[in-house]
């Protein structure tokens, strides 16, 4: 017979595993629902246990009931905690992606495709995203929030590299056609496989987005 908290524990294990993954595994809709249901059932149990006492329950008079109540009480909170931990780990991951400037919603779709092409070759429920609809909303809203906060620092790109700058100019190789960019030394046409010596600040975004590769 499943114990209280078994489902919650599974969620936490999912969250733990997720921390070491590069991508975001699919949202555990069923598990989340099951844990939530468990909480509701426990709450109903508590209500029905307390009903005959009409609000005048004395724990020392009926210790077995008191113990049941305590276990139910703690199990509910533990489940809540597990759910919070699971969702928080996921949102942390999503926020990290937003900070890195990758298009999360686009990426989630690509990932589903990538898994299908890879050695695993498990068709990952078509092109559906590994995010829950709520998470997609969250990513959009967090993106707006971040943009708003960043916008207040006009001269500093907060999402820029956190590596200390060593050289003003760097060598880059173009991995994907990125079109023409304007720099203070004139326009550069970034065509695939060409190589340039450019100012790091001008191309930081393109490196983060995978258009350019830093050399040396």
């Amino acid at each position, binding site marked *: 017979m499943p114990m209280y908290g078994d489902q919650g524990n599974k969620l936490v294990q999912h969250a733990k595993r997720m921390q070491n993954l590069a991508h975001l595994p699919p949202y555990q809709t069923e598990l989340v629902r099951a844990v939530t249901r468990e909480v509701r059932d426990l709450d109903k149990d508590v209500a029905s246990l307390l009903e005959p006492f009409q609000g005048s329950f004395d724990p020392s008079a009926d210790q077995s009931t008191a113990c049941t109540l305590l276990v139910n*009480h703690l199990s509910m909170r*533990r489940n809540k905690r597990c759910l919070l931990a699971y969702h928080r780990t996921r949102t942390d991951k999503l926020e990290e992606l937003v900070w890195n400037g990758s298009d999360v919603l686009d990426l989630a779709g690509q990932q589903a495709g990538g898994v299908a092409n890879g050695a695993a070759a498990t068709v990952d429920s078509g092109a559906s995203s590994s995010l829950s609809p709520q998470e997609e909303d969250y990513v959009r809203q*967090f993106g707006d*929030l971040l943009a708003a906060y960043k916008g207040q620092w006009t001269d500093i790109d*907060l999402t820029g590299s956190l590596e200390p*700058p060593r050289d*003003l100019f760097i060598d880059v190789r173009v991995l994907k056609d990125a079109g023409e960019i304007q720099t203070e030394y004139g326009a550069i046409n970034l065509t695939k496989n060409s190589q340039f010596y450019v100012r790091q600040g001008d191309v930081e975004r393109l490196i983060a987005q995978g258009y350019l590769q830093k050399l040396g």
Partner: protein
Amino acid sequence: MDIDDILREVDPTFHAVPQEKRSLQELTRAWIAERSAPELLPWPADGLFERVNGSIKRQIEKVEEMTGDMDPKTNFALIVIQTELERFKYLIRSYLRARISKIDKHTLHYLSTDALRSRLSEMELAYATRHQALLHNHYLSSFLSSFPSGLQNLNDSAGINMVESPDLESAVFIRLLKDTLVEGRGVDSDGAMDGRESDIVILRWADAKPLVENGSAELV
């Protein structure tokens, strides 16, 4: 040679304007402290960031002015100034990001009391409040709304405390700025020593905090 020296070397205003140098030192110090301290430190109150932002703006203008000039001498100066600018920007970026990551980690904790809220800058406060609201909304729409109403809060403390706070007992390194008595709590027994200026000590942040706050030590 530490970052101070490197920055000083490329700072063309080093000999002329002590004000800018002071700002830079303050910024570097705030940056180092923020990165080593386990909890969020107060936002610099004396307008440090207005000053730094001002000097960044001036430097950007100077760069724009000099760009048209093809004289090799100006060109060299341009590169020096731009390098300095990039490093300045990096310091600020890294500092702000270090703060944001701490705020994100323990948002509810920092929003819980006025004393803690006052450590955040206005922008950060707005960001943290909004971020927490987003998170709460996300939890609500994902699962919390189908919970019994008594369990829908995020800050309940009955049974299990749901508000995480930073670990004030984690270890930090400090450098003493003057001779002072250093007291620290250990696992088995507590210790005390007469510290001398420029000694470097490792101890719990909770023990180091008073020394740092009264200016007897700085974080390294």
